[in-house]
């Protein structure tokens, strides 16, 4: 009799505990992410000067931007994507030789457990306000010769002023791009290059006047160099 009660009690506890195994993504995002990342679209037009207060990239369109598998893995073992942080002037100091990154000022991204990472990724991947913009994007990844791609990325388009296209090459104020093809959806890459301001009105990525072919060439290069990464 007592044994029966115990079994029942154990079962009840197990059943009650079960939903916990799948952590609550919405609650986790609100609790762990929202203090640095925008998880809601901006309520009013943003002033470019307010970019200085940003602590993390906006996530309210995360589902139109990221690859879920990458998110799940990265949230458990985050690496630095922006060598000089989200707002470089905050993490840079002037020296007689020129400005340098001050590593002491760069915050570490919190690490999530596997359960938490999956729940957060699921919640973020459901944030897709720009499905139509992605659907309108005609970009299809094509192979590209790496040397041509590199020359275009650097010499012709000047992306390397701010972005790294290899761990030891390029500028540091923008996010590194040698893993962009693993992190981001190809259609997002093309759409963002074509019109970064449509995605993020106060981005410091310049809106260049590029043709679809020029956008595709740059996106192809990013897809190609990501494959070179371990």
């Amino acid at each position, binding site marked *: 009799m007592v044994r029966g009660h115990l079994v029942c009690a154990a079962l009840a506890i197990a059943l009650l505990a079960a939903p916990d195994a799948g952590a609550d993504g919405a609650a986790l995002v609100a609790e762990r992410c929202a203090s640095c990342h925008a998880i809601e679209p901006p309520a009013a037009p943003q002033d*470019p*000067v307010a970019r200085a207060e940003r602590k993390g990239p906006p996530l309210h369109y995360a589902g139109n931007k990221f690859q879920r598998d990458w998110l799940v893995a990265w949230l458990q073992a985050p690496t630095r994507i922006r060598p000089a942080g989200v707002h470089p002037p905050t993490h840079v100091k002037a020296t007689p030789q*020129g*400005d340098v990154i001050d590593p002491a000022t760069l915050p570490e991204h919190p690490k999530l457990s596997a359960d938490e990472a999956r729940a957060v990724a699921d919640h973020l991947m459901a944030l897709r306000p720009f499905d139509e913009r992605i659907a309108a994007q005609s970009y299809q990844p094509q192979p590209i010769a790496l040397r041509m791609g590199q020359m275009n990325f650097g*010499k012709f388009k000047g992306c390397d002023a701010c972005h790294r296209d290899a761990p030891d090459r390029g*500028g*540091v*104020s923008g996010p590194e791009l040698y893993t962009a093809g693993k992190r981001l959806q190809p259609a997002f890459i093309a759409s963002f290059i074509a019109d970064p301001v449509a995605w993020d009105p106060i981005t410091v990525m310049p809106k260049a006047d590029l043709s679809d072919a020029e956008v595709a060439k740059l996106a192809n290069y990013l897809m190609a160099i990501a494959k070179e990464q371990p």
Partner: protein
Amino acid sequence: MKGTIAIALLVALTAGPALAAGDARRGKALYQVYCTQCHGLEGNGKGVNAATMAVQPRDHTDRGEMSARTDEELFLAIQQGGKAVNKSVLMPAWGGNLSNEDIDALVAYLRELCCR
């Protein structure tokens, strides 16, 4: 005597760097966000990206170089990029990101940086 002071004041207010009609204080805040990565926290061309750049960013504190540019040229370089003024493609066009008013503000701040 009073008249002379008034005239002197008027001249002081209308002469020199006041040519750029933008709001230099706003320009300074915008410069921090959009320009310092390459042109440096102090505007001296030694931004955090400069070390790896094939063409060095303009030193905005260089009075000689900067005085040789008109406000219109500076506006054009910011709005349409280095290419538009026969300079490097590493200077992007900001016309798609910033309003004309904000670009005017940046020009006004550039005048402060170089020439005050």
